[in-house]
């Protein structure tokens, strides 16, 4: 009832009141969950971010000190932020690109499309612990498949995960391998492009490149945007792969934002600093999402039907 009073428009009729009660009743799991697992944690996390809190003693208010420390004096953070931006940028762009290209390939006239689609999709649902163990062995410098072959051919080995220069690209490669979700989305959207558009273009003398650039890309651009937005949101929070495969190393080369935050919270029990990091992450995600949506007005085509 109070929600409505606050939105405060007019008195509700008896029928509307009944509807409201029933509606709220059905929605109550989410409303309760929203209050308990979103509103309260958001508020208290904001409060903790201004405190020093180690779980053992009660939180001590220290103002902006956590934020100052993270942004100006923490020597790790200067490495963590570029690491994360590098990783998120290349993971998201490369896996979106790979997903799109594979989907285009599967969208041509081929036999066995469901079979190939299954193959390209499957890596996306392999449990993350398995992904880490499996790739860890595959990329092992001594007896992993790739380096054992290189050694057999008397070639120098590639220290995928043990070299600070290659650790991030290796993780990006594994992410690109697991691009199946995006691929399925692109394929579904490619198959929804009306054939008449291509036929009309052929009549107008368009070649394959024209068709691709002026029809295919605009028609799937909403899915590209969706992939980029969700990819960025998830990328900034990505934790398990790096934690399991490199543990942030070598030499902090894969110490990403989520790892650093986890370490501060659950290894060093610095809940205040971790909360401040989380809020900075939140702000970063909002800014990125906003910029993506803002730029999307220029390159995303929503058709003429339902939205602008």
């Amino acid at each position, binding site marked *: 009832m109070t929600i409505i009073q606050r939105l405060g428009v007019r008195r509700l009729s008896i029928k509307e009141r009944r509807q409201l009660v029933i509606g709220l009743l059905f929605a109550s799991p*989410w409303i309760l969950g929203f209050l308990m697992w979103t509103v309260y944690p958001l508020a208290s996390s904001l409060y903790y971010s201004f405190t020093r809190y180690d779980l053992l003693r009660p939180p001590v208010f220290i103002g902006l000190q956590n934020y100052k420390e993270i942004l100006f004096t923490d020597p790790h953070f200067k490495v963590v932020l570029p690491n994360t931006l590098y990783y998120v940028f290349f993971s998201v762009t490369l896996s979106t690109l790979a997903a799109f290209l594979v989907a285009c390939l599967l969208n041509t006239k081929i036999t066995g499309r469901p079979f190939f689609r299954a193959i390209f999709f499957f890596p996306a649902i392999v449990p993350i612990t398995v992904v880490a163990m499996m790739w860890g062995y595959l990329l092992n410098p001594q007896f992993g498949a790739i380096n*054992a072959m290189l050694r057999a051919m008397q070639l120098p080995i590639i220290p995928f995960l043990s070299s600070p220069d290659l650790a991030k690209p290796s993780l990006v490669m594994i992410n690109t391998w697991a691009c199946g979700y995006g691929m399925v989305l692109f394929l579904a959207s490619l198959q929804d492009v009306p054939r008449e558009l291509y036929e009309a273009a052929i009549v107008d003398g368009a070649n394959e490149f024209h068709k691709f650039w002026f029809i295919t890309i605009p028609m799937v651009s909403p899915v590209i945007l969706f992939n980029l937005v969700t990819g960025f949101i998830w990328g900034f929070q990505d934790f398990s792969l790096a934690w399991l495969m490199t543990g942030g190393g070598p030499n902090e080369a894969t110490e990403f934002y989520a790892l650093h935050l986890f370490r501060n919270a659950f290894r060093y029990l610095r809940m205040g600093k971790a909360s401040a990091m989380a809020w900075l992450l939140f702000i970063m995600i909002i800014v990125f999402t906003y910029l993506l949506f803002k730029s999307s007005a220029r390159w995303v085509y929503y058709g003429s039907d339902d939205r602008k």
Partner: protein
Amino acid sequence: MDKTLAQISQYSNHSHAPKKKLTFFGVVITLLKYTIIILLSVSFMLPLYWMAMSALKTPEQVFTIPPVWFPVPARWVNYIEAWKVDEFTLYLFNTVFRYCIPVVIGTVVSNTLVAYSFGRLKWPGRDVLFAICLMTMMIPGQVTMVPMFIIFKHLGWVNSFKPLVVPSFFAGAYNIFLLRQFFRTIPEELSDSARIDGANEFQILAYVILPLIKPALAVVALFSFMGAWNDYMGPLIYINQSKIYPISLGLANLGAALNQVGIKGLAYPYLMAVSTIVTMPIILIFFFAQRTFIEGIALTGMKG
């Protein structure tokens, strides 16, 4: 989905009909296309193949250079020995009965109720709340992670599955959105006629709507099962007693132990054997429910 596929193939057959003649150029393009697709498929499957084959290796085959791609003789007993290295049967039990099944039940029940409210009931304030609900998708888990840990610590729930299971009974934006999309495809007349017959909303949901959205419930159940099965970070935060480990932590610990001893004897074959076993249910689910998967994903992306 099938319908559109059929339409498309009809269209494309039609449009390609005039230039069906085999040209040299056309054959080359087709060959090239299949070569690329097959090469790509092979490289996508290679890590999984390597895992499955390595699980069967003898110690000598592990250290052979060039690497053994098809171990002869295959050492099948690796699976049994690896399973006994740690209490994997217990971990499997924990994962399925203490984590996956409760989460599936909680997710399906709560999200069905909430999505019904947002998708098929009209009430003042509904659209505002739904918009807020969608916005919560943007909140990174890290922001709520610390306070939730503190809440659960005060409740004495650390070192149990409750922190991972209980929140699933309170619905989540992603699944609400997904189910709501399905709910809205069902004609309003069905509900209306049930209302005229004197059914209350709960009866309408249970007897009229639910039978029609079984595929959607399957999507939600499937995704939540896999989410729990694959989860690593949740258990890592909340569970540190090995007797209630889920299988993901058990596998990660096996891997960590191996990193300490380095490559010795059967360490890697064992690790790959357990990894293969952990992947098996996912392969089975995927094999039997591929359509559900593909349609579920396509649906979330379409209108997003």
